[in-house]
């Protein structure tokens, strides 16, 4: 029986993730040095894991409030106020979610009518475009460029804007480019959002991993809190990817709308993860800073090596991704990544997995040990030299 005919059209039409294609190839190979993993190489700090074990021992095995544990929402408010300068009421302006991924999904489902246009900068995290499509919205990608260190500019936004745009999705610092914006650039984006009456969804999951210049949240700018849904989580800063825990903060009406979708689909985030998250916010700062410092040293090393090798790479100001330009090799990003994998067993993700504006680039995650990074760089160098000799 052809079961395809039962599948909804907009799901059938959804392209398969470029990352998944690449994963299929890599997963069949042995002894690969992978720079393709979008998560910290550190395990979650022990004190956080221990707090979750303790919570289980104490019988914390039940549903929580749909919004999440009030202790966690209070801790989120204190953390966001201290680190981002924005205060949200724990009672009705904060919603605990199953990672930022769920927060994003319910935000789109709560806010997008069929045909509404959603602007987002690209290259970007793999799920933004499909999430918009799944809610019958129309995706309006805005390119970012290597010449701007992949910062989003108000000029690019203005050029891409079209009537019917309702939402602006931001991810700064950005996966996969590591690009981010300084205060002046954020202010220009905010001004544009006000001018075009856009609601901003700001995924700031990499904000703690900003190495230079400090992170500026658009929600903290004058007049922006009321038109921004601030999305954040624990995966990257606290090395808690598998816990699937995040949160959304924003005006009470919007949080309430998202909560409606959340309560009927997810009910609540796992109580164990919520207990771990409280511990991370209250006592996790030192471990987080130690991890950030290590990422920064690794970044300096790998970016320098890419440039030495001749793969031009901007210095990513945030995240744990380098995004080198591989076009000088004469190959497109897919052929380069596949060739590198087959010849030298090093995995980097082709930039087009993150949208067509990633053409010519590959993403290299440097959240891995120095010995692996050093070896990977040497192998990439050998491969690039071989390619040059062939031409």
């Amino acid at each position: 029986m052809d079961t395809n005919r039962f599948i909804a059209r907009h799901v059938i039409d959804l392209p398969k993730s470029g990352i998944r294609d690449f994963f299929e190839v890599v997963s069949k190979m042995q002894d690969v040095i992978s720079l393709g993993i979008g998560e910290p190489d550190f395990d979650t700090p022990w004190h956080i894991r221990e707090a979750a074990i303790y919570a289980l021992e104490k019988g914390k095995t039940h549903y929580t409030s749909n919004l999440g544990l009030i202790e966690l929402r209070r801790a989120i408010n204190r953390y966001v106020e201290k680190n981002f300068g924005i205060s949200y009421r724990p009672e009705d302006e904060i919603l605990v979610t199953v990672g930022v991924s769920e927060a994003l999904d319910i935000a789109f489902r709560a806010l997008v009518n069929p045909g509404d246009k959603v602007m987002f900068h690209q290259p970007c995290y793999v799920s933004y475009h499909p999430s918009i499509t799944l809610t019958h919205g129309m995706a309006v990608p805005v390119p970012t460029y290597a010449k701007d260190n992949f910062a989003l500019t108000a000029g690019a936004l203005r050029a891409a804007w079209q009537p019917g745009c309702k939402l602006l999705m931001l991810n700064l610092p950005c996966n996969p480019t590591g690009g981010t914006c300084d205060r002046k650039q954020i202010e220009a984006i905010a001004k544009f959002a006000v001018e075009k009456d856009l609601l901003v969804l700001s995924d700031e999951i990499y904000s703690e991993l900003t190495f230079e210049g400090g992170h500026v949240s658009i929600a903290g700018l004058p007049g922006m809190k009321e038109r921004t849904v601030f999305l954040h989580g624990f995966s990257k800063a606290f090395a808690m990817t598998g816990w699937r825990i995040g949160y959304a903060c924003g005006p009470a009406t919007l949080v309430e709308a998202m909560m409606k979708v959340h309560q009927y689909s997810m009910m609540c985030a796992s109580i164990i993860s919520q207990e771990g998250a409280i511990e991370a916010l209250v006592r996790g700062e030192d471990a987080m800073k130690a991890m950030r410092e290590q990422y920064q040293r690794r970044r300096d090393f790998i970016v320098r090596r890419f440039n030495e090798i001749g793969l031009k790479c901007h210095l990513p100001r945030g995240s744990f991704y380098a995004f080198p330009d591989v076009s000088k090799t004469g190959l497109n990003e897919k052929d380069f990544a596949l060739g590198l994998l087959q010849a030298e067993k090093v995995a980097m993700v082709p930039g087009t997995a993150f949208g067509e504006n990633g053409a010519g680039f590959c993403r290299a995650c440097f959240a891995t040990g120095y010995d692996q990074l050093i070896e990977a760089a040497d192998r990439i160098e050998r491969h690039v030299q071989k390619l040059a000799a062939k031409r």
Partner: protein
Amino acid sequence: MDFCETDALMNPLIKLLLEGGGLSTAQMAQVLNLTEAEVNRQLDQFKKDRLLLGWRPVLNLAEEDAGVVRAVIEVKITPERGGGFNRLAERISRFDEVESCYLMSGGYDLLVFVNGSSLQKVAGFVSEKLSTIEGVLSTATHFLLRTYKEQGFLLDVKAAENDRLKVAP
């Protein structure tokens, strides 16, 4: 090159060493964008400045293979005018049997970590050497039965199997 404590901890090479990755000097040179000669020069300078005192391996030996008995001794001593506890503490520290020696707050003065090839030898050190020093008022010796964590390394916990995905978004 003189180091105050903060300067030393800000040094990129020291930071890399403290990460404990066990990198070779060649690897450290690569990471820090220095020549290997420069890394060696800096390490020599750290030693000259007595910032870096030396290297010791942290071994994970079964108790019966280790051939070493370790004890921790609480020592009460008489402080001296002008020098406090320093002269006696240094004198005790110089014995080969003494691994570490710390001045403590609380009910005793020195905490001394001692090792020897047998229980008798450690006991002999305490009764014949340590407790007979003039100024040592009393000792309380506790023998170590089992080690769970040493210098930041867990001993009996095997590294978790690496089950991370090879590619993830």
